[in-house]
């Protein structure tokens, strides 16, 4: 008895030493404009906790009453982002992480963990086109639209120019309505920061409402400058790229990993979802949704959520910390938002109109998993007006097994919400349950 108690105490002390850290808080305390920020906890051993991938095996995600969900496409190779062309054709970007150097032993372990958290299918490096010719919402034609890309992610069409953001460049292709395959090699508009180190490699892309400028999200080259500050040139930034000349300037900086660049349709303001830093505890730092102000410096790497200093960054820059602005709307910690779409369609019930859907890829370093779902955030007058609500769930089963993980979002020509699921190798379509 005494021995058992001694053993239990020893295990407790060891666990504390090895740094499983504080118990995670309820994520609902960290959503909205003023998230609760606990004290920093630096681990001895980061609590790597990724969901074991089990696949869908015929199951589908869950949606609330009034909505239905269908498989739009299955059997894909790591679909991560989506784009809907004006004629209703849906582009699905199959993509994966580019190879990179290993600079310290930790990365060997991290690469192995990341591999386990994703599908075993070798990612495609291409864009597929899906067409629904009979109007039932699900496609009946599929073609390879553009092949042999370099870890592509963002896609945007302006007039007859189709832009694809590879991890290292924005490429322009000529496109005519109805086209199902592009064989033209394309023309490089602008280089983007790529390898050899390419830590956050997904380059999100959108165009200004008047079509004159492109905006590209360029994520940081590290968690928190551990690859050296010199590796961060032009990164943790949203680039504004002149469509005519390819010249760029940094529109906003200090955004660790911005994705889902979208203009809010009512106010024509640029918004993005940002993946915040890891390894400061299960509840730091909350990922967020924010409007992006021209010329603003947010916080990365020197501080978080405004002026909260990150002790891991040396030398510090008090001048930049003083300028740092807090973002608009927290999504809670480590949910990994990678997709954002404003819903201006009319298929979904009125409740879902005017606000934003966010695809949360899900946590890897939190004892209790967070994210792994698509949430809806209501907007009034171009600003978030309430807490996020779960819309598409069921990506997790039995608490810690993943059937899939949501990434990019889009609204199709009929107003259905499309969700790229890279781990489940599927695209899901959510629409109104009543026809």
């Amino acid at each position: 008895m005494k021995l058992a108690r001694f053993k239990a105490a020893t295990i407790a002390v060891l666990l504390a030493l090895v740094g499983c850290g504080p118990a995670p808080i309820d994520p609902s305390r960290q959503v909205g404009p003023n998230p609760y920020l606990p004290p920093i906890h630096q681990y001895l051993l980061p609590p790597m906790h990724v969901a074991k991938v089990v696949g869908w095996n015929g199951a589908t995600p869950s949606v609330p009453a009034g909505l239905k969900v269908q498989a739009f496409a299955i059997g894909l190779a790591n679909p991560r982002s989506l784009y809907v062309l004006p004629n209703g054709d849906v582009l699905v970007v199959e993509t994966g992480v580019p190879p990179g150097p290993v600079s310290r032993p930790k990365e060997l372990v991290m690469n192995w963990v990341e591999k386990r958290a994703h599908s075993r299918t070798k990612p495609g490096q291409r864009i597929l086109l899906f067409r629904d010719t009979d109007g039932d919402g699900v496609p009946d034609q599929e073609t390879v639209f553009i092949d042999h890309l370099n870890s592509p992610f963002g896609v945007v069409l302006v007039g007859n120019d189709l832009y694809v953001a590879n991890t290292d460049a924005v490429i322009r292709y000529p496109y005519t309505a109805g086209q199902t395959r592009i064989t033209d090699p394309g023309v490089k508009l602008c280089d983007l920061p790529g390898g050899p180190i390419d830590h956050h490699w997904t380059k999100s892309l959108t165009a200004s409402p008047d079509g004159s400028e492109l905006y590209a999200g360029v994520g940081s080259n590290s968690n928190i400058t551990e690859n050296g500050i010199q590796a961060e040139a032009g990164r943790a930034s949203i680039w504004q790229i002149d469509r005519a000349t390819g010249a760029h300037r940094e529109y906003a900086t200090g955004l660790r990993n911005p994705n889902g660049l979208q203009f809010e349709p009512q106010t024509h303001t640029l918004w993005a979802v940002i993946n915040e830093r890891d390894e400061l505890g299960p509840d730091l730092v909350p990922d967020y949704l924010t409007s992006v102000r021209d010329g603003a410096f947010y916080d990365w790497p020197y501080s978080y959520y405004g002026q909260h200093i990150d002790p891991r960054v040396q030398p510090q820059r008090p001048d930049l910390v003083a300028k740092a602005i807090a973002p608009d709307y927290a999504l809670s910690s480590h949910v990994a938002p990678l997709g954002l779409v404003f819903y201006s369609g009319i298929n979904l019930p009125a409740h879902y109109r005017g606000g934003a859907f966010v695809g949360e890829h899900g946590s890897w370093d939190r004892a209790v998993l967070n994210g792994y779902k698509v949430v809806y955030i209501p907007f009034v007058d171009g600003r978030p007006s309430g807490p996020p609500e779960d819309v598409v769930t069921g990506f997790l089963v039995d608490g810690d097994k993943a059937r899939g993980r949501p990434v990019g979002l889009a609204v199709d020509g009929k107003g259905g919400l499309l969700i790229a699921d890279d781990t489940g190798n599927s695209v899901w379509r959510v629409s109104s349950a009543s026809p």
Partner: protein
Amino acid sequence: MLSANPRSTVSLGGRPLHAMLVPIPIVCFVATLITDIVYWQTAAMLWADMSAWLLLVGLIVSLFAAPAGIIDLFGDPRIRKLRAAWIHGIGNVTALILSIFNCLIHTRDAYTSVVPSGLILSALVVVILLVTGWNGWALVYRHGVGVRQTEQQ
């Protein structure tokens, strides 16, 4: 025939394995202190990365050096009777445990992977190694542990 000197149990062709391997972790852990100090002074990540590799290599070789040493300690009662052997053994095991924690601290990202906890542990390990090294040399050069009798004796 029992030789007059305490014998090493784990040896290759009469050469004690522990003595062959133990320089590698010692060099790695001493070099870790140096690269930690340089990182502390420069904040250039190259040095912190170097520390992480040095710690890992030191620990991996220790996985072989430590058991060889422990088996030698228990393999000959004459070694167990030496005070220097216990200081050497317990000290080195302590240094090894501290280095495991140090290795974990060095998996953190950027500055706090070294300053201050990593740097303190690296320095502590080197201080311990000075004491255990002193006693280890005594084992071989004063007590002749693992040294074969020469003809003259």
